Each structure stands twice: as structure tokens, then as C-alpha cells.
């Protein structure tokens, strides 16, 4: 399972396909202050990246690569832990 919610943390892990975009959006709409944990995320589909750009949640960790970095550059970073 690629999307898990644990209190105020939404965790994306592994490969997150386009189908994750909608649940992620729903989750972020319901919990605008949630932190999104990407430490375990290997790849985010464009649609998922778009949702993150729209909702601009605090992020923990970033997936590797120039492209996700360019997409998520402006998003706040959550304190460790």
C-alpha cells in the first residue's frame, strides 16, 4: 500500500501511481495541516506531484532526482521526527 495516514502524517511509500493522486488530495483536503512523509517514496507520479504542489503541505524527506526536486522546491520542510 502506497498511501497511509497516521494521525497528522500522511506517508507515501514505494512507487506512487496516478491512482494515488485522488486519495492523497482527499486526505490533504481533510487534513490541511498534515505532514507528508516522503522518506520511503521511490517515485511519485506527476499527478501525485501536482497534488503536493497544490496543497503545499510540510514535507519530510524528498524522493531522489532533479524532477521531484524541481517540483517540490517551494514546499516547507517539516522538522525531523
Amino acid at each position, binding site marked *: *500500500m*502506497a*498511501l497511509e495516514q497516521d494521525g497528522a502524517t500522511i506517508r507515501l511509500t514505494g512507487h506512487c*501511481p*496516478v*491512482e494515488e*493522486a*485522488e*486519495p*492523497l*488530495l*482527499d486526505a*490533504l*483536503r481533510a487534513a*490541511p495541516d498534515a505532514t507528508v512523509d516522503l522518506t520511503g517514496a521511490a*517515485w*511519485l*507520479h*506527476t*499527478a501525485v*506531484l*501536482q*497534488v503536493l*504542489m*497544490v*496543497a503545499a503541505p510540510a514535507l519530510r524527506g524528498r524522493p531522489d*532526482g*532533479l*524532477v*521531484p526536486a*524541481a*517540483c517540490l522546491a517551494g514546499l516547507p520542510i517539516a522538522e525531523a521526527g
Partner: protein
Amino acid sequence: MTNALLAQFIPEARELLERAGSGMLALEKSQSAEALDEIFRAVHTLKGTSGLFDIAPLTHLVHAAEDLLVEVRDGKLALEPEIVDGLLDSLDLVGHWIDVLETREVLPGDAEDAMAGRVAALRGWLQAGGPAAAASTAESQPAPDWLGALPEAERQAAYAAGPPLVAWSYEPDESCFFRGDDPAHLVAQAPGLLGLRVLPQASVPPLETCDPVLSWLRFEVLCAAPVEAVTEHLRYVSDQVQLSPITPGDLIVLEGPEDAAEVFGDFGTRARALVAAGARAELKAAASALLGIIGPATRQAAALRWIAALAATAAADALLRLVCAIDGAPPGAAPTVPPVTAAAAPVAAPVSTGAEAPLRQRAEAILAAQAEMLAVPVEAAQSAGRLESVRTVVRRCLRYLAPTRAEALNAALARSGDAAALVAALRQAENPAPAAATAPVPKAAQKPAAPAAPLPSAPAAEASESGAGAGPARMLRVDQAKVDTLMNFAAELVVAKNGLAYLAGRVEQVSGSRQLGREIKEQYAVIDRIAQSLQVGVMAIRMMPVSQVFQRFPRLVRDTTRKLGKEVELVIQGEDTEADKNVLESLADPLIHMVRNALDHGIETPAERVAAGKPARGTLRLSARQENDNVIIEVADDGKGIDPEVVRDKALRVGLITPEQAAQMAPEEFVNLVFAPGFSTKEQVSDLSGRGVGMDVVRNAVRKAGGDVWLASRLGQGSCVTVQLPLTMAVTRIVTVEARGQQYGVAMDTVAETVRVPRGQIHRIKQRETFVLRDAVIPLVRLADSLGLGAAPGEPPEEEAVMVARIGRERVGIVVDGFRERMEVIVRPLDGLLAGLVGFSGTALLGDGRVLLVLNLPDLI
């Protein structure tokens, strides 16, 4: 005039593109000369017509496509999938241009560049005879203007990497996710990726309303790779990409406010000396030192950073240009060229030969063509006719010619049938006729062989004055809003006329005059007939064939399956079925979703199919047909189907149904749970072959349009989604039913029949009332219960009035207290206080002013 012509051109161009595109797909399936001819003619016509407008890039691109098709037609080039891709992409680009042309009346600013790239690719195949050599060597294009927006560090890294460099921008189209595209992934995999910028195409959509399945990003990317490699990498999205090879120098974009401090002048002098001396380390140190004392945001600061970064490696002239950017001095001693005043000697004005001059020249040109024409050999059958036509032309030219020339030709004409004499006289035009009036006409030896055609008395027969009338059917282009307004009036009229029926009744009651009532009813019948004809007529204007929606699918299926590595045969049936334009438009998006689902999750890979004992190639069937007042669309695949058990377990787990409900449900009912809101979003569904993804969205869209959707599936054999939509949205035929003294409307097209069922024939099966109708067991629902109206007073009746309704594929009997009348109404959506009411599709205003609630049966059962 031009605008009207353009307005005519745009739909015609679209149709031609459509014909060419679908022809191409047909051709890829099976080589047929006919399909090729059709494509060729469409492209050719587009080329010819586009020449009427100032849209040269479009004409050039279509021309290149045509040339390629000629090679294919002549058998010199095999139509490989890559070439089809190239041609389709070019047609897409032309389609995009047509869209722009429609709104702005000019091509987009980048059309010339985009055309050059595409034409180079098409011509590449032309020369090389195959895609392998289709390196699109687009000629030097200006570097894109967004280069400067890339981070400076990335640009400096790219400068250090050196050529070849490619800058490209990529705007994935809105629906690209439906085709399985992952633009970020594509960008990440690009060869030689050095840096990029990601931004919204327009603006970032707001969180509240954004649609997660639509794409809105733009990528601006810098790659250190040959342009061919990047082109190849982006070949499937080439229509969404602007690509330009750039030089390292293009990367030096200096931005920021100008700083005019004197210190820069000193630096400039020193820096030039250092460059000349080859003292690069000192140059770098000087630049760094200056950077330490000035603000970082200026243009000069940017130039200094570049100098610092490049001092060790860059060529001297590049450094000097940067120095110039700092102190503003000209790069060298380039002398400014004095403007050359074009004081040329006045050209002798053309001697005026009178107002007739252009026509005389034109006539001479036409006569020259006649001589040329007569020199071309012709078959015997045509020779007499052709000579006759030449004689007609020559005769008509006479009046525009110089008198001597006219006389000579007239003399030649007199020898009817003597082609040689005529040709000789015509040739005289080349050297002006001698002053002598007698033209040297060769003596004709023979007598005319052919019987001389009677010369029509000049000027040619007076044509009838009335030019109009018998022309071909001329189309009228009308703004849809006007038709919609007309439609609304027609619908209002249909409803308003119902008032007359009430009036007739009132007249009988109030005045007691049956005669007057009858007369009103007769008038009502006349108006009724006219109103219906009017409505049918207006509706016909808005009817469109389903093919308008279906036509995009061959391409979608082709592209999607190519990407998924699946083999799918698309079968389209009933595309001539017509439905209202609005209805069809409401269908477009859900249909894409369903087709996409079927390809993604329904149909298996060839290997899986073969292992399951099926043909490797799957079949996707899209069909449309009309049933009563509905249009039925089916999307059927022969894929792996949906396991009802899995859906049931999932539905139980997420609390969509209770175990009690589950116990009463049939397998096909489980399968239809995928439409339930929340089914797909609560959990990953790929384990259910993904059918749940967004299916509630599909159902919402269809229901909003007054239709319904359901799914049938057999595990291992495939699934079929059926969409039922009303043919038109405007007027609904309803029957009114009564429950506890209240009247409600029910759409006629959901009512199969009405029956009276004796109480004794109603049985209970599993806590549900049922009755038997012609060997079928039909469940019963009591409308009053469903609406929460409470028990009926008094004894239950001996017979129940039952309306048998079709809901999806099910039939359900609805017990009502009685049936009233049938009528046509405009159903308006619930709004205001009523907006949240479940169970009603809207309200309708009746002829007597009452408001009727119209039931939405699927909600109630």
C-alpha cells in the same frame, strides 16, 4: 469576406484532418489503396485550401506530409508505425493551429519554428526512406526565451558540459494521465538531463476545486545530448514539446537591474587587459573581489558570476562579451554602418496603356496558353471539342487585343477547323505583329475536315438572369446559443400548451359550456401538433452522430495500447446513432475514462491472454444504439472481468454494505458496487483490476445528464459497461402517479408498463414483496414507504396499482395509489431549499401553475 471564409475553412479543415487521421489508422491496420487515396485527397485538399489564407507554416507542413504520402502511394516508402506517428503528430499540430486560428485568426507565434522541426522530420524520412535516419536537423532556431529563468548554477554546469545542448519545453496536455503518461518520469529519463524548471501552464489550480487527474504542469528542460536523442526520447509527446538545439553561449542570459557605478568602468579596463594577457586566474580573482562589494541582484553581478565561473575555461571572446555587459562599452571597434540612402535613379514609370492594360496582358497570356495547349497531343475523341473550346477562348479574347492582332486572329478563326492556322496566328503574339494589317497567316492547304461548328452569335448566349435558387445546399453556421434559445422557447411552448387542456376543463366546469370546451380542445390539438413539429425540428438541428464522440477513440486506443504493450482491436458499432449535442458532450469524458479503464485493467497483456487460452489480441467494442427515447452506449472488453467476491469483501470491509444486505445481493449487484461513491477512494483497488478508479465520477456525470450506467462482468471473460442517456435533455415525457394524495412525476422512459396486481398474487420472498409478471419474479417497492409518507388510512385495496420500472437492467414494481395523466414537461434541477433532496431529479411546472416533484427512481430503490 476573409473572416467569413476563415469561418468556413476551420470546420472544413477539421473534417479533413479527421478524415486523414482515421484513414491513417485504418491504413496501419490493413494496407488499402482506397484508404491511402482518402488520406492523400484530404491532405491535398487541405494544402490547396490553406493557400487562400496567410498561414504559410500550415501550408508548408501539410505540403511536407503530402510529399511523404506520395512516396508511400508510389510504393517507395513503407508506412512504418514511426512514420504514422510522425504524420499523426503533424496532423495534431495542424489541428492545434486550427484551434488557435479559430480564436485568434492568426497562427501561434511559434508556428514557424514548430513547422520547421516537423517538416525536417518528415523530410528526413523522405530522403532516407525510413525513420532510422530521421534525425530532425532543424535549422538554427533562436534559443527559447525561458532559458534565463533556469537557475544560474544549472546553466553554468551546462556551459561547462558544452555542446551538444538542447533546450526544450513540454506542456503535457490536460488529459495525458488518461493515456498513461507520466510526464515527470519522461522528463527524469531524458538523455543528458542537466536542469529544469517546473511551473504551471497557467496558474496553480486551487486546492478546493483542482482535479487530480488533469495535468497542468509545464517543464522547461536543459539536456546535454544530441537533438536526435532527445527527439527520439520525446517522440510520443512531440506535439506537446518545443525543442531547440542551443549553443553554450545561449545559456549566458544576464538579468537584473542595471548598475551604473563607476567601479564597473575600472573593472572593464582591467579585465580586458587580463583577457588579452591570458591571465585567467587574475581575471577570476578580480571578478570575485568585485562580487564581494556589490549587490547580487544586478545584471552586472550576474555577468561577474559568469566570468568567475568561466574564467578558467571559456574562450576569450565569450569573456569579452561578458566584460562588455558589465561596463557597457561596445564589444570591439565594430564600425556602425552608415545607413545607405536608397537614392536610386527614378525608375521610369510604366507607360500607362489605359485602363484596359491588365486585361490585354491577361488576354495575351490566355492566348499563349491556347497555343501551348494545342501543341500538347490529345486523343482523337477530344480533339474536335478541344479545338472548339480554343476557338471560343480566342474569340472572347479579341476585344481586349490591339486592333491589328485581333484582326489577324479573327481571320484565322474564320478558317474553322484549321488548327494549324490558329496556332500560327496565336504564336504571332510572341513578336508583336508587324505594322502591316495583313498577318502572315500560312496558307491552309486543306479544306476543313471537320464540319464547322456553328458559331454562336457573339457574345455568347444570354444566360438566365436568376443566378440564385438552384444552387447546392448551402450550410448555415449558427451560434449554438441561438439554437439553444430557440430550443428553450419550443420546450416552453410544449409545456405552455398543456395549459389549454386545463382551460378546456375549467370552461366546462365554470361556464357549463361543453361546446366551448370542445372548441378549445380542438385548438389545443392544432397547437399541440405544431408545437411538437417545432420541437422535433429544433431538436434535429442539435442532433449529432455519436461518431463525433467515438472518433477520438481509435487514436486513444492505439496510443494507449502501444504504451501498455497490449494488443487491442477496437470495434466501433452504431456510430451513426444520433443524440443531442449536449448529451453527447456530457458523455465524452466518462467514455474516455471507461475506455481507459478497459485498456488498463480489463484487457490483459498478450502473454497473460495466451496463458488463459484467449487470442493474444483483445477486443474492445464501443457501440451505440437508440432504444426508445434513449441512446445506449456500451463499452465491452474481453479481458479478465471482475470478481464479485472480491468486490463484496471490499465493500463489506469499507462499510459500504452490511452483511445483511450482502446476503440478499446477486453477483451482478456486487459488481455494480464499483460505482458507489467512496468505493474507489478509500483504498487501493488495483487488486480488483482497478475498475473502481473514478467509476463514481462516471456515474455522477451520467446521472447528471439524466441517464444511468451499469456494469456486467464475467470473471475471466470480460466486462461491459452500459451507459443509458436520454436522446435529448430538453423535454421529458412523464406520467404522474399518486401516493397519499400527493402527485409525483415519473419519467416515461423508465416505465415499462403499468399493471394492476390483486393482493393475493403478492408474495414475500426473503422479506421482500414480489409478484409474478409473465413468468418473471419482480420485486415490489411501495412508493409511500420509500418517501416515508406513512401507512395508508383504512383497508388496503383489493388490487394494487403497480408501475413496472426499468432501473438499469432490472425491473422493479412500484406500488402507487393511482396513475394520473401523461404529459411533457421541462424538468428543472432542484435548487435552493430543495437542492439536497434525495430521490428527486427535479421539478416541473404544470400547465395550471402547480409545481410537480419528479422522482429519480434509482435513488429510491
